[in-house]
């Protein structure tokens, strides 16, 4: 019994990470109806940026976030203004194919620079520190930090969206880009900020993941898919729904892995397809 509780608790913790993958995806979809296929590869890219920062400057991975988050914000702003803004408006094909091309470029660029070797960020004592709840249930400090950060990020994002001028401009360009422009917003700049914010969240998630698990240049697409599944399972209505979606995905994977490690990822995919079959609008979407 205790073992099962432990499994589920671990799943909830990982779910926080998946939710952070998903929020970045959901944010840019909400603001500009763009689905970024390179999202997962950008998660992996941020892990490599952190790897360079820790190796050359000798920083702790968590401290390296001070550098990695702004760098990824800038990367996001620049690819939005340089690439994606040129494809928006109209057909779904151009943005999709451009982000697909970007995904292949990032993957193979990382492969060229860093080889296909497995990497991991070394975080010292934090990697093994844990909180003991009972004989069977112990929670690693790092997973707990992931979940706490996910909740904090969502809270901050909600505040930003509904209480600040920047959030108002996000919602305005999402509702009607033309009117927003008439009201004096520079849509291209707003889109750039949204992509920057999306990748700043991605950087946080990417570094946390890289402390917990091995990564190599080819692991991006799986991250994209996990984030996407969390978005659809949670429904597109709110970021809290997305968090719930991530947690459900985490629990399903964790339970399946405890039965047979070969089932872990497959079970997550099947759960996603089951939600699609039974409740395609997501589990937490308010019926209107």
């Amino acid at each position: 019994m205790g073992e099962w509780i432990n499994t589920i608790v671990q799943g909830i913790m990982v779910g926080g990470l998946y939710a952070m993958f998903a929020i970045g995806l959901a944010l840019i979809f909400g603001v500009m109806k763009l689905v970024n296929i390179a999202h997962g590869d950008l998660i992996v890219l941020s892990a490599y940026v952190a790897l360079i920062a820790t190796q050359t400057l000798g920083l702790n991975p968590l401290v390296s976030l001070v550098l990695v988050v702004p760098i990824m914000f800038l990367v996001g702003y620049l690819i939005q203004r340089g690439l994606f803004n040129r494809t928006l408006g109209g057909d779904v094909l151009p943005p999709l194919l451009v982000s697909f091309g970007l995904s292949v470029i990032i993957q193979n660029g990382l492969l060229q620079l860093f080889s296909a070797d497995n990497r991991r960020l070394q975080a010292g004592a934090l990697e093994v520190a844990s909180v003991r709840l009972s004989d069977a249930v112990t929670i690693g400090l790092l997973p707990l930090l992931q979940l706490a950060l996910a909740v904090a990020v969502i809270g901050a994002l909600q505040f930003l969206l509904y209480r600040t001028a920047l959030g108002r401009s996000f919602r305005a360009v999402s509702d009607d880009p033309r009117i927003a422009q008439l009201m004096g917003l520079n849509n291209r700049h707003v889109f750039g900020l949204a992509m920057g914010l999306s990748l700043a969240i991605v950087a946080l998630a990417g570094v946390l993941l890289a402390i917990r698990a091995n990564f190599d240049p080819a692991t991006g697409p799986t991250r994209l898919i996990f984030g996407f599944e969390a978005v659809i399972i949670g429904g597109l209505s709110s970021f809290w729904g997305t968090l719930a979606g991530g947690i459900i995905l985490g629990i399903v994977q964790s339970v399946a892995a405890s039965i047979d490690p070969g089932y872990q990822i497959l079970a997550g995919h099947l759960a996603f397809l089951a939600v699609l079959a039974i409740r395609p609008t997501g589990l937490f979407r308010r019926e209107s």
Partner: protein
Amino acid sequence: MSASATITRSSRSSQVGLIFIAVAAAALLSVPAWASNDAMRLLIDIFLYAALACLWNFLAGYAGLVSVGQQAYVGLGGYGLFALTTKAGLPPLLCVPLVGLVAAVASIPIAMLLFRLRGAYFAIGSWVVAEVFRLSAILITPLGGGSGMSLPARIAQSIGQAPHDRYVSVYLTTLGLLLAILIGIFLVLRSRTGLALTAIRDNELSARSSGIDVDRTKLIVYVVTAFGTAMIGALIFLQRLRISPDAGFSVNDWTALVIFMVVIGGVGSFEGPILGALVYFFLRETMSNLGPIYLIVLGAVAIGVMLIEPLGLWGYLRARFGMQFVPLQLRVVDRAASAAPKFEETRPTA
């Protein structure tokens, strides 16, 4: 407009084009009589990729179903061939249409599930399905599990004792299948379904309000594409003689490269994907020793094409010279004046 005006699909360039296609098909049919095994292997590769590109373009360029999960059907075709030949003892070439049928049947429930996702979400959903196939293949131990399996020599020899004979068999089958796929897509595009597809491509909402059953039309395209893609998959792995989950369901090999070919050649035109496949193989033969850089260059070229000329090379040629190789576009011709076409059905910029 004068009463003598007629509507036609044919034009000078399409008449030349059809003659060229006939001559090219005849020339390609004669290849086994004189070509080396290596030359045949290259041509088989070109045919296989050209077919995949045409099928993907049929799906994405005409029905708007941008899939990044077509490797699901390539792998299904390959594994289907290996399963049916080794476990059921069927002759390999008979298995090719059989696995096509299996994939077509399997694609119906998949389509019903994936059609609940729109646009770009459909793309990622299709990728999830392909991953489900790949991860399931790892679990099937009779077919080699994660490490895959080889086709036993006796099965390979059943289509030709000597390597040369096998190349000839696979070459002719692949060429025949490519031509069948091209003719099939051509006929669909000229039928009522093709007209419906053009309407959906240009504006889905107004197509729907004109009484077109959009979902049914898209379902037909999805199933037909799965049928063709799985048959090509079977031939790919009949040629390679070895399959594994990572090779069979590779997103890079069977979808990324194919998408780049179609984008470079021209999305949404009949000729574009073939042109794209030829350009790709020209590049591959000249710079394939570059490793990962090669894919980076290809991705960058595809992005550049998408930003500068979204209709690709063929789109550029068509706009510049008004040429078409295959009689698909409807045009009005004023016979009395026997003038150049007054106006053409044009495609709005994607």
